[in-house]
């Protein structure tokens, strides 16, 4: 296990380096400069001298390798720089937005797993049964449903027509404190959480279903039944537990997916999380924020993937001994 861990860690080092280089290149070779975006934003032309001044101030007149070196130096000191837009530290802006995104995605993930696992096990336990057929069609439809369209329709129905839920935002201005305030916040969370949940729900429920459907015919599940285990126990303790293993490695890929989903949903529901911060920063050519968020998103994904791989190897010795080709 130690050897496997070391090998896996060694492979992550070049990936990390690749992430850093890619983030930097992507933004600094891009044609739209922050100076020209500022001019367009304010609706007036930036004079050539003012633009030059700004370029020097932000170090944009330096050659690319020099800027890269300076950037690496700052990253190593965990200094993410200042936002071009409001001159505040990038780290501070991200720290402000992060709790909103964690709340939204944490709830969505809990809801996803809470529904996907029982549904997938029930459907996979009786393949081609009524539940499997109905849920198969429904999940396929959800799987193809564009989240921004779903968001618009839910807004039109629940916020405009029925007036049950707020259109967007985090909380009402006139929200009472205490229990009423909590309720108000939950009402604001409802639609964005639903929009973030259904897509990953469709994905996970179908994965669990196909894993369980495959496992239930395996010898060890049949043997458990023969030993007198109940159908329920054979399904959950034997079929599902073994179907769960390959799912662990997929958890690493959930994070970038959730961040992607957050960009669109946070924009539509005016939710002040990192997804919207990223989108606004892209439009404003706020390089330091875009660089920092891309870097953090990719590094977090790398870390989660690594942890998932190690957990998988811990649970399944065949992986770390290399006896099973992966």
């Amino acid at each position: 296990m130690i050897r496997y861990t070391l090998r896996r860690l060694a492979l992550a080092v070049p990936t990390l380096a690749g992430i850093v280089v890619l983030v930097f290149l992507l933004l600094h070779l891009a044609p739209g400069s922050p100076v020209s975006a500022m001019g367009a934003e304010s609706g007036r032309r930036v004079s050539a001298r003012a633009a030059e001044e700004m370029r020097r101030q932000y170090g944009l007149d330096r050659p690319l390798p020099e800027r890269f070196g300076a950037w690496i130096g700052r990253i190593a000191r965990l200094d993410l720089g200042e936002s071009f837009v409001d001159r505040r530290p990038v780290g501070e802006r991200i720290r402000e937005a992060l709790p909103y995104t964690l709340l939204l995605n944490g709830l969505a993930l809990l809801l996803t797993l809470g529904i996907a696992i029982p549904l997938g096990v029930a459907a996979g336990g009786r393949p081609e049964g009524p539940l499997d057929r109905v849920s198969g069609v429904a999940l396929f439809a959800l799987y193809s449903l564009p989240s921004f369209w779903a968001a618009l329709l839910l807004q039109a129905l629940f916020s405009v027509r029925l007036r049950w839920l707020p259109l967007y935002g985090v909380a009402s201005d006139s929200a009472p404190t205490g229990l009423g305030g909590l309720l108000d916040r939950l009402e604001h969370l409802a639609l964005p959480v639903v929009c973030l949940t259904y897509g990953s729900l469709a994905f996970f429920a179908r994965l669990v279903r196909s894993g369980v459907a495959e496992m239930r015919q395996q010898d060890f599940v049949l043997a458990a039944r023969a030993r007198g285990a109940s159908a329920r126990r054979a399904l959950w303790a034997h079929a599902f537990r073994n179907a769960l293993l390959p799912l662990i490695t997929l958890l690493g890929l959930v994070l970038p997916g959730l961040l992607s989903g957050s960009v669109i949903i946070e924009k539509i529901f005016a939710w002040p999380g990192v997804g919207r911060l990223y989108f606004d920063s892209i439009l404003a050519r706020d390089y330091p924020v875009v660089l920092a968020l891309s870097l953090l998103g990719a590094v977090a994904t790398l870390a989660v993937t690594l942890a998932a791989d190690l957990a998988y190897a811990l649970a399944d010795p065949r992986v770390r001994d290399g006896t099973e080709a992966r």
Partner: protein
Amino acid sequence: MSAAQELSVPLARPRAGLPGSGGVALAIVVLLWLVAAISPLCARRAAEIRLEERLASPSATHPFGTDDLGRDLLARVVVATPISLAIGLTAAAVSVLVGFAVGASAGYFGGVTDLVLSRLVEVVLCFPVLFLLLALAAFLPPSPTAVILAIGLTTWPGDARYARAEVLKVKDLDYARAARAAGASAPRILIRHLLPNILPPLLVSAAFGVAWAILAEAALSFLGVGLPASTTSWGGILAAAPTYIEEAWWMALFPGLALFLTVAAYNLLAEGLRSRTVGRGRG
């Protein structure tokens, strides 16, 4: 983008379990291309601005209602069809081509080549797809080519992984060894001998890729960084919907419905293709 979650995991798409649906999907796709073929007939009606009829609800004259400039929504949805289909197809092609080149080389040559190329794939996969997509789309000048490149260049790692795995399966089979023994060059073996044999699984991946690309283009245009505003697209029409969500629900409903149907049809087609190529109809 349909919860981009699953879209960033192209390898692991689970089975739909919908037998016999491939034919239905093919019929819908053919129908969509027919609509695209006749769409120029609607161009004049789609461009006709009638401010006195703005935001009219669906009726006999305007089955889908009208938009904020009084343009007929049905005509606009029809006119937007070819660009969505074409971008979906070309972006998926870019993705599969780049993915095949990288993945097949990694699988075929192995060793250091594999190590380096696989790290590259892993690097790109670590980024949230939409982060890369937005950056590329926003920083390239708005045009269909930019959208195609942005989508193709962010989604190829999935295809590369797929191609690598498929090449590994066949590269040491007898026919490949025979070609090598006969002195064929590596590119020739890859393209003439291995590619035809791994084409069916690549096509499945490509069909999913088309659905994905159509969704991605719509999402980009919806966010205002996709196609230029002068090009009518489903995402572009939807972009105006939030402003009028209080008075004109039809502006949100119909363009999205067209998008949903198209994406579902391509996904279903891919599922159908897969159950044919993989054969084993288990479950």
